């Protein structure tokens, strides 16, 4: 395991004071890889927080070029990068924050052809995709490969998050055994809503890797930012789940 350099010890000085994290936890972050897909309103902030926290390697999967309508929430995309690849903008912004960060940029969304390989390269997966097809692929591969997956999602002023630990918890297909019919590709969103749940997603990944705290196992945290109502709902494995077989 690679040890922290003097520069890293200085950079992470304040978070090394977090009880149960310390140098050992920080070294685990440095030696870990997180897959973030995609790097939109949610994934951008997940990636930024993980970069700030000193994660060693980020795999960023996101197709397409930066569009004007990305800029209200996708904080790794910038106005001067309009029309250019999103993953390049993300990589540039993250490197400004943390030049030590190793980034594997994949200019594709998660699909049947790349899911197994990309999940296989990661220690933790943060699922921030806008389509259930992509989420279900990441969930399937995470369960098959025994990798924890943090699933965060939002709609309008509502947001939710849970952490899937294969063999211990409900998986995404336990929660959603069928293709949801009402979900539409375009959804109402403020960046502050996606960013809020993204920070929780980053924190879940940090806890899983460093090994402290209590991840949201078999719990679905929901937030309604219109009313500031926050709840933790007990969720359960589904008998006969097609993915985790629980």
């Amino acid at each position, binding site marked *: 395991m690679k040890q922290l350099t003097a520069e890293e010890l200085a950079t992470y000085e304040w978070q090394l004071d977090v009880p149960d994290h310390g140098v050992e936890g920080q070294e685990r972050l440095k030696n870990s890889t997180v897959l973030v897909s995609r790097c939109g309103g*949610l994934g951008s902030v997940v990636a930024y927080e993980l970069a700030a926290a000193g994660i060693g390697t980020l795999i960023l999967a996101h197709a397409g070029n930066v569009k004007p309508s990305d800029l209200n929430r996708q904080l790794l995309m910038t106005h001067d990068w309009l029309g250019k690849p999103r993953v390049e903008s993300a990589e540039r912004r993250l490197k400004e924050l943390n030049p030590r960060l190793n980034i594997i940029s994949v200019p594709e969304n998660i699909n049947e052809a790349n899911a197994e390989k990309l999940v296989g390269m990661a220690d933790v997966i943060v699922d921030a995709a*806008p389509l259930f097809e992509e989420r279900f692929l990441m969930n399937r591969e995470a369960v098959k490969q025994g990798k924890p997956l943090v699933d965060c*999602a*939002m*709609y309008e002023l*509502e947001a939710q998050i849970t952490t899937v630990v294969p063999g211990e918890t409900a998986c995404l297909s336990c929660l*959603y055994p069928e293709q949801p019919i009402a979900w539409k590709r375009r959804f109402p969103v403020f960046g502050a809503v996606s960013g809020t749940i993204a920070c929780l997603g980053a924190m879940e990944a940090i806890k899983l890797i460093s090994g402290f705290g209590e991840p949201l196992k078999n719990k*679905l945290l929901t937030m309604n930012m219109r009313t500031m109502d926050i709840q933790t*709902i007990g*969720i359960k494995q589904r008998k006969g789940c097609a993915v985790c077989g629980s």
Partner: protein
Amino acid sequence: MDITLKFTAQIKDVVGKASDTVTVSNGTNLQELLTNLGMTYGDRFKTILFDEQGAYRHSNLIVIDQSQVNYDDDVTLADGMEITLMSPISGG
């Protein structure tokens, strides 16, 4: 007896409000309530909750008093119960 209903995401959108209160008779179970709600809130609501054969779409989560329950669970409603119907969301 009175049941408090809460709705999220697309279900909230088709109902047109985030919460409601309905009065049901003693002994009503969860399946009967949801079937009856289809008549109260209309076809778009019914289409989200049930397929063409009338089978429940299990990707809509049902939460009673902060715990998930399955549509097929044997749940008899009680006065003051709070039931949340959650539409699956995937915004990223």
